[in-house]
């Protein structure tokens, strides 16, 4: 194959979902050896585009050529046979399988018709080591892995085949900086070997670190293509969102003096150890730390989803019973969980029903739900968040990832909460929407609501928080003022003292 024929060529692709035209004639190409970044706001059609290439969905019109040859559409095994390897945005592993089995699902090494398990395990170990995760055991069940580790397994799976084209749909969303850096190392090496890479991310700073060219997609169309990777950030944002986003972060919340939430010595072995903190009305408290530090578990304990081994949680001075999220909600706490798909939403339900689930009583008179009132109220909240689409009758599954996140947030907007616990609220959310969510958080705190934000993006924590708590290996190890904290400072608390130098070195 000559070098100038693109590795992948997508011509005039359209994709019509029932009621939605996700792609409206997209042209796109990837050359061998380049990393081509794909940007675009939530719902732009990025995932749809790459799913057409990987064979998961069949495009309505248009054609796809790999190495100049037409690719049969709608058949994942065909795409894989042609050297297309894909890491999907939503985790796509069978959780019931072991790590090695997941990685080799569909192309198991065989001996005498049986799986060659030792070969599978050896190759799995090699792959995981290459990704810096020799610690993930080949025999572990995928179900038992943290989301981040599952993502690593997904990546390993894509690499387990001989790929010519590697597609990565927001692989970094749930990885921490160190892991992302390792991943980039692998990607760079593959590109050097002539593999073409499509890289999708909402973290714009990653573009110049890894990308060669950039294509921006918006509303199912290419709005810019072939941009150099060092295009200034502001310009990219403007192309994506169609407007300038001057100020990502609103004014910092000040907070008041009255303590709303008081967490005292909460422990849950082995992930949370003796955590105590207070949150005041009108304050935004950020919780930072490395992936796996135990932040999610801490929020679950506060919310009453899990029962702590020791410790108590007080809301407005009154103790919350453990293990009773329903009581926590009644008393005014809301939680937007980290994994919206498995924990936040009923994907088969309409947006309206998802938003109203925690506050049905508001629409109920004499035991009877008023569907009209429900639809109106939920629609209003969805519009407030600029959800696309904002039709309350749409099925949640059909929304793009970022918009699904907004549906979860809308639920707690609908209910007047005293305390909001947000676990990675902007994961997978585009810049425009991020700005909206930040604005929203600021608004809520201005109304006197206490907000707790868990985030893996240090920048976000610094931009938003009144105070930042740092969690490390289950303990709250530091408290910093949001205004004055620096990234280096945050990181040095987040990693174990002995490793500090290494990390600071690596992340620069």
């Amino acid at each position: 194959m000559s070098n100038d024929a693109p590795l992948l060529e997508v011509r005039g692709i359209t994709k019509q979902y029932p009621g939605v035209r996700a792609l409206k004639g997209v042209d796109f190409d990837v050359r061998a050896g380049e990393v081509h970044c794909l940007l675009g706001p939530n719902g732009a059609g990025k995932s749809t585009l790459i799913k057409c290439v990987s064979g998961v969905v069949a495009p309505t019109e248009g054609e796809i050529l790999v190495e100049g040859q037409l690719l049969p559409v709608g058949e994942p095994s065909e795409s894989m046979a042609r050297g297309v390897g894909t890491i999907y945005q939503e985790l796509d592993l069978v959780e019931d399988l072991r790590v090695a089995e997941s990685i080799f699902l569909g192309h198991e090494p065989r001996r005498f018709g049986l799986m060659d398990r030792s070969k599978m395990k050896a190759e799995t170990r090699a792959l995981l080591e290459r990704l810096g995760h020799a610690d993930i055991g080949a025999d572990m069940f995928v179900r038992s892995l943290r989301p981040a580790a599952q993502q690593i397994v997904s990546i390993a799976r894509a690499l387990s085949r001989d790929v010519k084209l590697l597609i990565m749909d927001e692989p970094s969303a749930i990885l921490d900086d160190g892991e992302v850096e390792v991943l980039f190392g692998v990607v760079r090496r593959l590109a050097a070997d002539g593999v073409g890479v499509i890289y999708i991310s909402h973290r714009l700073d990653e573009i110049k670190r890894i990308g060669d060219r950039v294509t921006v997609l918006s509303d199912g169309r290419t709005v810019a293509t072939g941009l150099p990777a060092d295009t200034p950030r502001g310009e990219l944002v403007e192309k994506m969102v169609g407007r300038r986003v001057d100020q990502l972060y609103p004014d910092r919340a000040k907070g008041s003096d009255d303590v709303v939430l008081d967490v005292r010595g909460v422990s849950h072995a082995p992930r949370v150890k003796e955590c105590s903190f207070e949150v005041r009305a009108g304050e935004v408290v950020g919780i930072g730390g490395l992936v796996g530090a135990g932040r999610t578990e801490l929020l679950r304990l506060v919310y009453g989803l899990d029962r702590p081994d020791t410790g108590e949680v007080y809301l407005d001075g009154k103790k919350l019973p453990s293990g009773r999220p329903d009581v926590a909600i009644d008393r005014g706490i809301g939680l937007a969980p980290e994994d919206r798909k498995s924990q936040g939403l009923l994907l088969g339900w309409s947006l309206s029903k998802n938003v109203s689930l925690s506050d049905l009583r508001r629409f109920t008179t004499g035991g009877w739900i008023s569907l009209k009132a429900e639809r109106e109220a939920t629609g209003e909240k969805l519009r407030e968040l600029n959800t696309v689409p904002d039709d309350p009758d749409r099925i949640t599954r059909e929304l793009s990832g970022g918009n699904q996140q907004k549906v979860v947030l809308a639920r707690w907007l609908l209910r007047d909460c005293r305390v909001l616990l947000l676990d990675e609220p902007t994961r997978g959310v585009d810049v425009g929407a991020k700005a909206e969510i930040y604005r929203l958080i600021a608004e809520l705190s201005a109304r006197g609501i206490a907000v707790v934000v868990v985030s893996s993006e240090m920048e976000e924590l610094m931009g938003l928080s009144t105070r930042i708590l740092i969690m490390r290996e289950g303990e709250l190890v530091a408290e910093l003022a949001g205004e004055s904290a620096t990234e280096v400072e945050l990181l040095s608390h987040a990693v174990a003292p002995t490793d500090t130098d290494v990390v600071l070195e690596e992340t620069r």
Partner: protein
Amino acid sequence: MTTTPAAPAANAPAPARSGRKFNFQDYALVAVIAILIIVGGILEGSSFVSKDNFFNVLRQGSIVGVLAIGMTFVIATAGIDLSVGSMVAACGVAGGLLVDSGDLMFIVAALAFGIALGAINGAAISYGKVVPFIATLAMLLIARGLALWMSDKTPISLFSLDSVRWFGTGEILTIPSSLVVFLVVAAIGWVLLNRTPYGRYVVAVGGNPEAARIAGVKVQRILFSVYVLSGLCAGIAAVLLCGRLASASPVSGNLYELDAIAAVVIGGTSLAGGRATIVGTVLGVITFALVFNLLTLMNLAVEIQQVTKGGIILAAVLLQRRSS
């Protein structure tokens, strides 16, 4: 229960957004029913297509129908209740033991026994965390054993219970009373499922129990409740059945669970939970009752009936697929 004028009014907004409520599957079942009626009319003429026979079909369907309404709630939570057939027998016998205390006591006893057995199912499943299939399979055996034991294996005559017999054989404005009971149960079920927070919670628990819990739904309590509901429906079905038979037989109700589950599933409620439709269930019940009635009228040999019934079920479902 008072019927407030608000009821029809609250219904009104539905048409505007009806696309989802009355879905393709329901339409398909309506088509299946229409085809059955046409074919039946051609083959059997007026002995099939007559008000009398339709009421007969619906009256017969009403017993399994009541069970199917309760089963819809159970299946909506991704559960299953295999014990309803046995519970019908046990409830009937439990009531029958009080035959000398009059009609009301019979009914109270039958319903209370159903609730009690359902509560055992519910407790084992929600608090004991036993898989519904196994818990209700155990109850299938236990309830049948109880029915045999309490009745000393002999049917109990309920000839003296006029009101109970009325439920089986009476009429309200020429409509068979058991059909009226079924329709009332179905209507309550519909309201409960589609218009009350409880119904939302039931479907939420079936769709994604973890998400439901995080949203504040008391998952265990909901799980418990649907089995109690199913037990209550078994009690109601027992009253209807005993009323028709004028006796409480410990061997009755055999395999009703399969009929009820089949009606629910063919109606479009997903066995995986999270999707439930009462209208579909009612249509499913009618479909099965019609098929059975038609085959009996045609007086086919039993083996041909079975093959035909199997074939019709398959065809009906394939037709549904096609149209959705």
